[in-house]
């Protein structure tokens, strides 16, 4: 089976040794072999100290290369000296690649006493890499059994620990059969299993090996190391063997790290090398089973495991070419993004698509694969799971609310990751919203609502808006706010979707045939009208709560910018039931927000008008004159309220502020004709008083009418400095200040 032992002399006699010298000094500098540079080293005192160490290691290695049989440690000070040298250097800095051949040869040849061999093996700490050749030759030593059982075990443990430091592994793979034969040895078996686990590739799995392992299993009973190896075999060849691992298994192999792990870490830290970290073993099947009452409920998101449903092809392949390398990359092994990139051509989706939810790498993959069946598999799985687990649709499910919440959260995160909603989720929401109490899993459900894909308006109304409105009107202020927040996100998701697909409209079929722009515009318009309606009602129900108004205006911050920011030919003004409460709000935050929104409406409308005028070709979409009219009505009211004090006279909106002078007189407000503007507005009066206080601290009359002329401008600057940026942009854009002196004459701009 292997060459006879006597032929095993150190591979490189004296000349080789000489080579080592140069290499060693190179290793000393930076841990890497760079023979070219090693000659010209300028040595510092520290280096000189290192050099002496260097020399002693070289001496030690050459000693071990030539050492004769059976030197006793006790009586041999030379051996003691060299052994100590190797040990101390190894633990401090690790051994250079060239050292392993020599030391492994001597340790496994049985020339020296076991205590020496043990100490040598324990000091085999790599500084950088371990040459594959040295491992190969030590395996041949193993095969001729020159060394004791303990040394063999120690060697295997060492090999497992430093596996990732071996520079190449092709030849090592060729020795798979030799390692496999060591399984017979009862003591070695666990370690050999571990080693085989590291070495196994698809082509290593053979029926005769499986049979051997099963025989071992029959002889030794259930052993975790055998289970691990067999389940790896099952992973590669499910058509040959199968195993079900008990749920609570955690470790499959005894720790082999022994004395090396700590030393390796120390050396690595010292060398500041980002060498490979041995990765923890990974068995996809070892997921802990959650307590579950029915076998077919899968709230447990399945673990990613290779799709084993290609047995036929694989079997055929085996017949043709026994040594073919595996062509698909098992998803269980996919753990890093670089792996994904390297294997993206030969990656297959897991056998159960549901498992992608918890696997961001597979989600990346899913994002770049245009495969209908991928989505369909996910659609069925998710749809069934959502319905089966829904805590308010299925009786007796309420005790599992936490689990369900987690699941919904995972689904939501996936939607965010993919930036698209799942249709199974949408259908689930449509089916379950009418039965929802608005309380159970609230934040999760609302989050999912924000990812509902655009669909035809009739469906949205009966399946989403109607049930949502019912809950909205009958629930707390906070629920109302969260619904508004959700609908804002829904709108933004739709608009983003539109933006993305506007770019790719021609290159892909994504913009499906009946997804016309007008269809999209209608659906978006319907959502905005819906929000306008519920906002109007909610403001009345909640007495114009500022908190609520904030969320409503937040929604309109998106609406007012749709034309410019999202390239959608649609603008809708807020209803009077939203506009007037905001305009007359007692709170400067709302007023400021409204000012900003009206400024953005103006910018969008002006841009639209310019586009219309400049483009010769007839545009498919034109804003109706109605929107300009609405805007102008509002702007008249706003300018009246904030600037000219003429809101009561000028407002022409049917639901506006227009009041007869007779009525105004009855209010007993003096000078009502000049008493409603940026100074007297209830949201602003506080600023006006503070402004007076700061400008004229001695004046205690607080005569607000003093704010005019130059002071009016100072007051404006003061307001802007207080952070009322919305007010600033509004006034600067919408108010045409004819003359600085006669500010009361300032007019509005009509677009």
């Amino acid at each position: 089976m292997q060459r006879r032992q006597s032929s095993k002399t150190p591979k490189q006699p004296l000349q080789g040794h000489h080579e080592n010298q140069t290499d060693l000094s190179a290793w000393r500098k930076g841990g890497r072999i760079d023979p070219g540079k090693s000659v010209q080293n300028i040595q510092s005192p520290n280096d000189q100290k290192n050099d002496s160490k260097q020399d002693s290691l070289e001496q030690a290695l050459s000693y071990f290369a030539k050492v004769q049989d059976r030197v006793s440690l006790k009586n041999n000070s030379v051996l003691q000296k060299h052994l100590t040298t190797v040990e101390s250097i190894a633990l401090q800095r690790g051994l250079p690649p060239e050292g392993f051949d020599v030391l492994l040869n001597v340790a496994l040849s049985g020339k020296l006493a076991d205590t020496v061999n043990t100490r040598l093996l324990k000091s085999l700490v790599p500084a950088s890499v371990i040459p594959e050749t040295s491992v190969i030759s030590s395996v041949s030593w193993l095969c001729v059994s020159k060394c004791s059982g303990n040394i063999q075990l120690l060697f295997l443990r060492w090999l497992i620990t430093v596996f990732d430091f071996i520079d190449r592994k092709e030849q090592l793979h060729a020795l798979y059969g030799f390692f496999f034969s060591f399984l017979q040895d009862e003591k070695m078996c666990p370690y050999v299993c571990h080693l085989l686990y590291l070495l196994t590739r698809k082509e290593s799995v053979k029926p005769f090996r499986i049979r051997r392992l099963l025989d071992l299993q029959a002889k030794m009973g259930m052993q975790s190391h055998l289970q691990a190896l067999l389940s790896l075999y099952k992973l590669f060849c499910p058509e040959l063997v199968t195993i079900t691992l008990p749920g609570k298994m955690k470790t499959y192999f005894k720790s082999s790290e022994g004395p090396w792990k700590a030393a390796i870490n120390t050396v690595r830290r010292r060398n500041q090398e980002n060498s490979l970290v041995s990765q923890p073993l990974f068995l996809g099947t070892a997921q802990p089973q959650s307590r579950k009452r029915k076998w077919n409920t899968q709230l447990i998101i399945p673990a990613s495991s290779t799709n084993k449903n290609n047995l036929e092809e694989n079997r055929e392949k085996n017949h043709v070419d026994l040594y073919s390398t595996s062509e698909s990359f098992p998803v269980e092994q996919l753990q890093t993004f670089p792996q994904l990139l390297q294997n993206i051509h030969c990656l297959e989706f897991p056998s159960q698509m549901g498992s992608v939810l918890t696997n961001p790498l597979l989600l990346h993959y899913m994002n770049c694969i245009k495969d209908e069946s991928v989505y369909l598999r996910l659609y069925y799985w998710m749809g069934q799971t959502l319905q089966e687990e829904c805590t308010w649709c299925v009786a007796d499910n309420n005790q599992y609310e936490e689990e369900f919440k987690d699941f919904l959260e995972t689904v939501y995160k996936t939607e965010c990751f993919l930036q698209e909603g799942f249709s199974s989720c949408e259908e689930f929401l449509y089916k379950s919203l009418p039965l929802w109490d608005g309380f159970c899993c609230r934040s999760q459900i609302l989050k999912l609502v924000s990812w509902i894909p655009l669909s035809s308006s009739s469906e949205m109304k009966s399946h989403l808006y109607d049930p949502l409105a019912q809950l909205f009107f009958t629930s707390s202020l906070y629920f109302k706010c969260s619904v508004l927040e959700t609908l804002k996100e829904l709108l933004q998701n739709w608009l983003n979707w539109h933006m993305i697909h506007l770019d790719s409209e021609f290159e892909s079929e994504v913009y499906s045939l009946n997804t016309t722009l007008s269809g999209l515009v209608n659906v978006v318009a319907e959502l905005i009208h819906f929000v306008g309606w519920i906002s109007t009602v909610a403001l009345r129900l909640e007495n114009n709560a500022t908190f609520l108004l904030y969320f409503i205006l937040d929604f309109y911050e998106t609406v007012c910018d749709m034309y410019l920011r999202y390239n959608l030919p649609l603008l809708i003004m807020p209803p009077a039931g939203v506009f007037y409460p905001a305009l007359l709000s007692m709170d400067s935050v709302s007023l400021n927000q409204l000012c900003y929104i009206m400024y953005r409406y103006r910018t969008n409308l002006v841009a639209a008008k310019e586009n219309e005028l400049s483009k010769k070709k007839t545009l498919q979409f034109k804003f109706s004159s109605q929107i300009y009219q609405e805007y102008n009505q509002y702007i008249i009211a706003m300018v009246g309220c904030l600037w000219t004090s003429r809101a009561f006279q000028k407002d022409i909106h049917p639901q506006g502020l227009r009041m007869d002078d007779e009525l105004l007189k009855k209010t007993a407000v003096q000078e009502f004709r000049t008493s409603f503007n940026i100074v007297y507005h209830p949201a602003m009066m506080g600023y006006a008083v503070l402004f007076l206080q700061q400008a004229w601290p001695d004046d205690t009359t607080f005569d607000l009418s003093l704010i005019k002329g130059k002071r009016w401008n100072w007051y404006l600057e003061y307001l802007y400095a207080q952070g009322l940026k919305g007010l600033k942009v509004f006034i600067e854009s919408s108010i045409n200040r004819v003359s600085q002196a006669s500010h009361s004459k300032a007019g509005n701009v009509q677009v």
Partner: protein
Amino acid sequence: MESVEGAARTLPSIGRLSRGPPFGRAQGRFGLSPSGRLLPPAPRSQENVDPQQTAFLLRKQWTLYSVTPLYRFSGARLRDYGRLLGAFIAAEKQKGLAVEVGVELDIKVAVSSLPDLRGSDQDQAAVLVQLSSRSSASRKNSEEKLLWSGWFCCVSGDDLSERVPEDFTCLPLFLANGAESYTSIVGSWFQKTFDCCFRRLAISPLNLSWMAAMWTGCKVDKTASALELVFSVPSLPQPLDILYAIHPEDAKDLWDTVQKTPGEITQEEVDVFMDCLYSHFHRHFKIRLSATKLVKVSTAIASAHCDGFIKFLQSQYLTGVLMLLTELAISQIQ
């Protein structure tokens, strides 16, 4: 509950499962039951069913499941599936011990096809899974005891099968008889291997009344057994069931007066039929059955329980009943 399981008849067009927005999708998916059904074309479809071949399906209680389309299932590889499933069962039963695929095991698995059980050529042939034990003593005699059986089928499931891509196989109805532990193992294997989902298929009272009406109208040769309806009275400290048995000929006569178009049944006719039975009952016992829940229907054709159990009694109406159950299963998976 009604609206939750309210029949959704059409699959979303596949196109919209990809990234596009769902414009122009089929309407009314979350709405109502169909207002009318065609009667199972009993005489025609029975021609190709050999009663001998399906006799073993009769007079057993089957638990109903809906199954989403199987991904990469091939009807040509049933034997392979049997071997793999056999090894999987053995591995599950002795968790932790690996099992070689294809060796003789205590439990024999046979996966076979029941080509007769389908409504149209588009339907996939039904697939039967049988687990039987080999008693170790009499292995030579090949004496096998049937432990568990289950079958997948699709009778006139064009609604679904026409809409899924080639990689998928539509066998939306699964029926199991035997210990649930085996159902669980077999179901898990199918779920893992073909990425499908099993769900218990309950039958709503509305659909039970459909069954009562449809089956009453069917002709049976021998002296038929009574139409039996079981109602459960809700909100009582003790469960109270009411059994309402009607002589089959009386029921048939009543139905014949209700049904207008032969070969077709409408929701309205079913309602009228049930209302007549209810008012008759009320006249005698002063109990309004419409306020209770219909939980079980038994006729000479079959008997069905709302928890999702069915017993077939007449082989000539087997496919007819399966057609209705297939429809219910499809409505549950989409």
